[in-house]
Each structure stands twice: as C-alpha cells, then as structure tokens.
C-alpha cells in the first residue's frame, strides 16, 4: 500500500514536471491523424472497380446496399442505374428482396440488414462485400406503385353528393417540381383530376421523417367526398403492406388536417389508416380476402380529408 502510494506520488511528480510534453505531442499526432482520416475513405475509382465483382455476386432480385449510407451517391455515380433504381431506393422495406449485396467501408454497418444472415463476406480493396440472406423474405405478388397505368387502375372523385368525376389518364401532362419548399415532382404520366394541377394520381417520390425516399402513389384528397383508386387484377390472399404520408419537410409542424385512407376489397372495408402529419410516414398492413390460386379481384383505396388544401398525400402498397 505504501509502495503504491509512493509510486502514485512519483507519477504525480513526473506528470507535474512533464505534462506540457503531452500538450506538445498533440500537434504532431493531430497532423498524422488528419492525414490518416483524410485518406481512409474510398474514392470514386475504387467504387467503379467494384462493378465486375458485384456482377459476380449479384443474383436477380437482389438489392444493392451501401454502408455507410452517405456513401451511396458515390456508388450510384460509379455503378449507375443498372445497379440502383428509384424503385429500390424508394422502397417500402426490404422484405421483398431475398438477398442483399452490401458494399461496406470504414467499418460501418447497416442497421436494416443486421438481422440478415451473412452468406458470404470478402475483402475487396478497402471494401467488405457481403451477401446477406433475408430471413424475413416475402415474395412480392404485386407492387401497386408499378400498377399506376390505365390498364390496371381507374381513378374517380366521389363527391358527397354521390356524383362521380373521372380522373383522366394522360402521358403528356406538364412535369412540375417545387424544389425545396414546393411540392414533390408531378409526373408526366398521371391521372389528372379536376381541381388543380396537384389533384392527380401518379408516381412521385417523397421524403419521410428520416428524409429517406418513398416512391409512392400521389393521391391528393378532394375538397369534398373522396378520391377512389381501383386496382384491377390484384391477386387474392396474403396481405397488403403499405406506408403513407406527406413530404415530412413540408408538414412536420403538424398543422395539416388528418387524412384517412380506406382499403376496400369485394365490397368490404378491409382496413383504415389514419395519416397524422406529426408522426410522419407510418406503415399499415391489412389482410386480403382469400380465394383460389391464380384468381384476382378489385382492390380499391379511398382517400379523404376534412380539409384537403395542401394535403399532398402519397402512399405505397405491396401485395405479399
């Protein structure tokens, strides 16, 4: 005990005499650390060099993911649209993908695939390339966002009076994009409803509460009554999984009126989802009626709001 106290006293004396060397050492150490950190992240050419190896690893239906997520724009620049798509980037979730190919660098992980089983892992330059199998894989039976076209979808406004107004399909609408503070992009191909340019049904991409993309069906509610989207040829059985919301940046103050989304099948209400701005995008799941294998039915979505002004509502829906 006495010896320990003596040593401590000695260490204290040494520290009091030489502490300034520690401060002085920070300078060169910081210089070295700076150069280490400045060069540790892979550059564009290194991402480009991944293409052949990724081609060998990827199977049809796989999704390509990048960790850290902030590096994804580099991978998109390097690898291109063949590897990434609006559909994959703006996905509802990962359940539709049997496997994920993950490009990892800087020791970063993706929480989204933490539960996935690692099938293979290899070092490639400064990357770790992993193939991971999705334990929660659910084969996709229909992606309704892909079904926004006149051969699969009919859109009408049903007014409180009972009058029905058809929203007409066009492939020549004026494309609009509101920038940071304006509405999301309005597509050229869409169902245009009466009441204004934003009263449309078409595919757009909105930001959710994590500012992540949501590729979704823009379905602005009408001022009175409801907007009805009727999808034909929807397979029986399983569930409709979805998520709904508005641009989080524009609505996060929570001042907007709630929006109600009803899902109907075979004349029955299958479920109801209430959108509240402050919550951001919220998911929903509803069971579908079951019939014989291969048969289909009409699934409809009804969108309404007490106060429709500025309610740029959008939803995703998949049948699994």
């Amino acid at each position, binding site marked *: 005990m006495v010896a320990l106290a003596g040593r401590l006293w000695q260490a204290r004396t040494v520290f009091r005499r030489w502490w*300034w060397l520690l*401060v*002085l*050492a*920070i*300078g*060169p150490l*910081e*210089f070295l*650390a*700076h*150069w*280490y*950190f*400045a*060069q*540790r*992240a*892979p*550059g*564009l050419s290194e991402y480009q060099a991944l293409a052949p190896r990724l081609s060998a690893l990827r199977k049809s239906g796989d999704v390509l993911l990048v960790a*850290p997520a*902030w*590096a994804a*724009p*580099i991978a*998109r*620049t390097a*690898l*291109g*649209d063949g590897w*990434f*798509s*609006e559909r994959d*980037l*703006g996905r509802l979730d990962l359940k539709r993908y049997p496997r994920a190919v993950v490009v990892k660098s*800087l020791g*970063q992980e993706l929480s989204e695939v933490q539960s996935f089983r690692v099938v293979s892992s290899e070092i490639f330059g400064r990357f770790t390339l992993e193939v991971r199998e999705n334990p929660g894989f659910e084969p996709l039976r229909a992606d309704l966002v892909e079904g926004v076209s006149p051969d699969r979808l009919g859109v009408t406004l049903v007014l409180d009076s009972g009058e029905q107004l058809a929203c007409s399909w066009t492939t020549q609408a*004026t*494309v*609009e*994009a*509101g*920038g*940071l503070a304006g509405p*999301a*992009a309005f*597509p050229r191909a869409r169902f245009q409803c009466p009441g204004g340019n934003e009263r449309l049904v078409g*595919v*757009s*991409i*909105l*930001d959710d509460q994590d*500012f*992540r*993309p949501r590729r979704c069906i823009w379905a602005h509610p009408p001022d009175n009554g409801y907007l009805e989207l009727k999808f034909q040829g929807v397979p029986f059985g399983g569930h409709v999984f979805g998520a709904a919301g508005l*641009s989080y*940046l524009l609505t*996060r103050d929570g001042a907007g009126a709630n929006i109600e989304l009803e899902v109907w099948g075979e004349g029955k209400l299958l479920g109801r989802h209430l959108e509240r701005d402050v919550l951001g995008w919220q998911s929903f799941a509803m069971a579908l009626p079951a019939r014989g294998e291969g048969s289909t039915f009409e699934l409809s979505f009804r969108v309404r709001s007490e106060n429709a002004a500025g309610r740029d509502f959008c939803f995703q829906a998949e049948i699994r």
Partner: protein
Amino acid sequence: MRVVGKHWAVALGLSVGFVALLLNTSDKIGYARDEGFYFQAAASYEAWFSLLFLHPSQALHREVVARYWQVNSEHPALMKSLFALSHHFLYAKWHWFATAGEAFRFPAMLISALGVGVLYLWGTETIGAFAALTGALLLGFMPQVFHHAHLACFDMPVAALSLMTAYAYWKSLRHRRLFGALGVGLLYGLFLNTKHNAWLFPLVVLAHFALLNHQVWLSRVSNVPRKLRFPPALLAMLVLGPLTLYAAWPWLWFETLPRLMAYAKFHLGHEYYNMEFLGRTYWKPPMPLGYAWVMTLATVPLVTLALFTVGLVNFARSLLPRNVQCAGVLRGLGSKLASIPFGSPKSAQLLWLLGVAVNYAPWWSSQTPIFGGTKHWLTAYPFLCLLAGVGVRVIREKAQLLARSKTQRQVLSALLFAALLLGPISMTWHSVPFGLSAYTPIVGGASGAANLGLNRTFWGYTSRSLFNEINALAPPGARIYVHDTALQSFEQHQQEGGVRPDLEGTLDLAHSNLALYQHEPHMARVEYQIWSVYGTVRPAAIQLFDGVPVVWLYRRP
C-alpha cells in the same frame, strides 16, 4: 521603440501574408449563397455612391436613399459599402483585380487579415512575441476561419472588428487618453455597423469593468473607501458607437427608430433554418445545448483547444490564491481581481476570457438558432487564440528549461513552433475549397463527421467545383438547376467566365437540363425530385472531400 516598430512590421507582414494566401485560394472557393445577395446589395449601394458623387442633393433625398439602401437592409452597411467601393475602384476603375467577385471579397479578406495582425500586436504587449505569433497563426489556420475569411460576408470581419475594438479598449485603459477613448467609440461604431454580434460586446467590457471594480461596490458595504476606476472609452463606446452606426448607414437616416426596430426584430426573431447535428435535423427550439461545444471540438484543431485550456488554467491559477481554505478562495480571488491594473496583461487576459464566454453565451440557451454552424461564434475565436497564446508561452517556458544555451533555446523554440502549427496549417490548407465540410481528427475527419451526422455543407458554394463538368456536359443553351446556390452567385461566376456564357442558371428544375445538388438531409427531397424529373438516380459527376460526397450533378438523359 525599435522593438515596437519590429512588432508592427511583423503584424503587417502577417496581415499581408494572410491576404496573399486568401487571394491565392479565393478562385477555388465558389460564391456562397449569401455572397450573391451581398453582391446585389453592394451593386445598389455602389450606384448610390456614384449618385452621391455626381448629384449629392439628389442622392440624399429620402426616397432615393430608401430605393438604394433598402436592399438587404436587414444587415448593417459597412461591409457591403466596402464591397461596393472595392468593386468600383479596385475592379471597375483601376483594374487591380481580374474579377468583380474578387474585388467584392477583398475588403472582408483585408479586415480578416488585419485581425490576424492585431492579434499578434496585442499578444506582443501581453504574452510575448513568440506566443503572439503562434496565437495569430492559430487563428488564421482554423479551417473554418480560413474559409469564412474569403467570403464577401460579415462573419470574419465582425470577428476581426470585435478583436480590434477590444484591443483598442484595453489600450485606452492603459494610456487613458481622450483620443484613444474616442477611437474606441469609433471602432465600436464600425463594429456595430458590421453585424449584430456587436450587440454582445458591451457585455464583455461591462463585465470586465465590473469585475475589476467590484470591491468599490463591496466597499460601500464594508465602509472601506475605494476609488471607482471608470474608463472613458466605455462612455465613448456607448455614445459614439451608435452615432457612428447611424452616420455610416444611410438607411437609418430617415425613419430611424422604426428601421432600427425592424433590424433588431429581424435578428431577435430570426427564422429557424435547418441544421443537422449528430444525425438529427433541428429546425425549431429546443436546439441542442451541446451544439456549440461539440462543433467547436469537431472543427477547431485540437492543439489550439489544448493550448487554450493551458492558457485558461494558467490564468485561473494566477487569480486563485494557493493554500487557502475554501471560504477564503472567493475573498482571495476578489482581492486579486481588484489588484489587477486596468491596462495590464492580466487585465487583457480577463478581457479575452470574457470575450470567449460572452460570445459563446447565447448557445447556453436552447432557443438560440444554430443554422449558421460555427460562424455564429467566430467572434470568440480571436480571444480563444490569445488565451491559446498564453498556453504557448507556458509550454515554451517549460521547454526552455531543458536548454543550456541560446542556440538550444532557439532550436527548441523552432521545434515547438513547428509542432504546434503543423496540424492547423496542414488541415487548413487541405480544407480548401470545402472549408465548411472540414472536420478535425477528433471526430474522424470529414468521413467521421458524416458517420456522426454532422452538417456536410451549406450555402451552396460548392457548385464551383463542378463547373468544368457542367461546361463539358451541358448542351448548347442548357439550363442549369442551381439548387442551393443563389442565382446571383451563379451569375457572378458566369460573368467571370467560370460557366459557359450560353448556359442559364435556373430554379425551375422541371425545365432544366442539368441539376446540381448540395447535400443536407432536409434537402434530400430536392434530389428525389431530380430523380423523378430526370428519370435517373445516377449522378453524372460528383465532388468528394476526403471521400465524402459534397456536391453532385445530374444530367437529363
């Protein structure tokens, strides 16, 4: 006298050298969003100055003043007036600068550089030439200071003017001359006319005054008479300062009170913009209370902060009596404070400490906006570096004990100088042109900051780094969506030949051919619109800083 002359020469050399470095790197740094607005304001003020020269009575008419000075009247006039005069004389008339933008930027560079020189001068009078020189360079070589010092904005000029005013105030305490006091008042007026940070400065000098005089008030309780040491400069500041602001800001010449109120209201109730911090985007109170401290740690070289800590501890120890009981500490501290001569180095150190404390104080409140990142408290950095200079002096004294000869002492000093400045200089030089994306190794550099979710960039200045790609990829007459870059900034670049003359900057994404995107999380929805409108998620070009994407460009297929 010869020594004083030498110090002035070194200060001048430092300032000239710093301006030269800024000018040398200026063309790499794109025009920031706010610079575009200030260019526009400066052009309006320049037109008024021309009118004043040609038709003074017309220029002084109420409506005419309002017409020319209403532009950007939410900020005071000094810097924009200097931008205007620099543009008029140094670019248009005398052709000293090749580009208008460089001429607009020059006054801010000059004042920032003078700040570095003044820091050295003050240091030589208080902590010695070696520590002063190191402290001055530590200020100049903070990556974010170096970045802001380039811009035709107010953030570094206001930091420099804060330092100059404090220095002049301290000098006036030393010499107690009427001329000096009037000079402080005038300087404070210019400081007030630079940016609203100046509103805080009276708190620094009043706190300084109060601490050094506290025993006068206490004596009224104890009945021990003491004489109040009242600095005339304080009075000059409070009287001459507002008068100078009024005189040098024509916008205030008419409807003075309502316009002053509108100015104050704009800043006291400023809109909350978005800012990412530790993975979360803040856009309304409560703001994170750790913001200023974490961001300082993440962006100021650690060696500078360590030296500041040493300086701070040294100063605190000098005030605290040794070997006293707890109850006696306050009494001892009080008597030490009271015994500090007004114009002494110790009085200067107290002023520096208060300069740091008061300029950081607003971020003790969760109501204070954080959208400008570190530039909000740049005014604290000169004082922080002066205290770091105290730390340098302490360490140098320790190191000198190892030397046995003058030569050894000189070698040790040189090694010390190199060791302390190697990191800050290399980090700062490396940060050009992406100074706002630069982070220190304590958070793992730029990539570490991206992992932590710290702000990547703002103000849209990074577009400059993709002009070669824009010029190469854009079809003739193409429209370029500029995203967060102000159109005025883009057009300034175009006028200077950075962008092809046939191209047009636009904020209409739907009718653009190429689209820029500068990343901040809340801006992501703009990128999604680009995907929708262009039908591709693949950028045609991207600029990385240390492997971290800062700005990228889409081309309509």
